[in-house]
């Protein structure tokens, strides 16, 4: 009985979480695949990423001590998702729903060498 009521409450907690973070009621934010990426002034710690298609969470950290940085996922010239003006030392969580394909990755500055994201 006790266990059962806790389970129900847990379910309520989880579903309320997922409906505010993810919008799809069937998806729980906690179970989305997370990819951590460190962005410096001119490059990312990983310049090639590979993720599965669908919803992903990217945890973007600015490791520069002085510069605001950008992190973008681009398709051709179109920005698919972006973290803009991330202040030094700050961390931002970005949720992206990605279709399979090859994407460019902007690390640090728009003029920096591009990285690559493969979405399977």
């Amino acid at each position: 009985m006790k266990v059962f009521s806790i389970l129900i409450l847990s379910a309520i907690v989880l579903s309320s979480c997922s409906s505010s973070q993810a919008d799809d009621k069937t998806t729980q934010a906690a179970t989305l695949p997370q990819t951590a990426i460190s962005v410096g002034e001119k490059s990312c710690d990983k310049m090639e990423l590979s993720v599965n298609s669908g919803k992903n969470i990217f945890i973007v950290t600015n490791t520069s001590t002085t510069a605001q940085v950008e992190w973008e996922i681009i398709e051709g010239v179109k920005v698919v998702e972006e973290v803009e003006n991330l202040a030094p030392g700050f961390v931002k969580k970005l949720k992206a729903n990605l279709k399979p394909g090859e994407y460019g990755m902007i690390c640090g500055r728009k003029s920096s060498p591009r990285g690559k994201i493969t979405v399977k």
Partner: protein
Amino acid sequence: MKLSQIRSSLAVICLLAATMAGCSSSPTSTTEAPQAAAPTATTTTAPAEAASKAPVDLTAPIAAYKSYVAQEVDQLTIKTKAFTDAVIAGNLTQAQKLYAPARVHWERSEPAAEAFSDLDGTMDQRADKFELKEKDPKFTGWHRLELILFQDKTTKGTKELATQLMKDTLELQKRMKTIAIEPKTMVGGAASLIEEVAANKISGEEDRYSRTDLWDFAANVDGSQRIVELLRPMLQTANPELLKRVDSNFAKVNTGLGKYKTPDGGYQAYDKLKDPDRKDLKAAITLLAEDLSKLRGTLGVE
């Protein structure tokens, strides 16, 4: 109910409250500061706000927003033509005068207009985004011209930059006609415009040579408020308290900015902004950024 059961139920309720509070303050994305600088820590949110509604039909507001953006980009094109013509003709006073009024249209439509990484990169980057800062040959567009016109106070060496800016603007106008505006661009745009104010405008970083930051500040607020207006019926249904707070903070920001309006419809130089006013504006902007970041969750926008 036995005491142990009550205890564990209470623990679960606490957990529930804590989890919901955590969720409600981070709807789609959160920025965490290493210190206690994050605005998320300052407000508490009613648990009711954590629950997002089923996706709302946004077809009509998106169509209206697309036409708003198209109008702004058309105005941008007309005013950029006048601005770049003045630059190319070597008319410094006229070029300086036309700089801020043209940018207003870019800043209002920015969520959609900056969707193209190449154009955003050549048109609207600030010097510190480049390795060699102000000396970097890749530093072009509005802010490079701003540097030359307002700091060096000349039109010398600007012809190529002005020509490129006009070319980019025409390309933007062309692309805007074909681009589909996604719900997240519009709904998320209300917050991203205000976050941009918080990041670059309130500090006076945006237009550091011309000191026309308040023009851009006001234009970002206009663009964000327009999105909220177009979504008002849906927000009224989904979360009237949130909408009420957003309205009240927009009103505070507009009152604050209103003190610095000039008779020609523009704004005084950023240096004129008094510290208490800057503080009030910053407080309202921070609350707005926090509340507007909940719009996507509130309307169930992926």
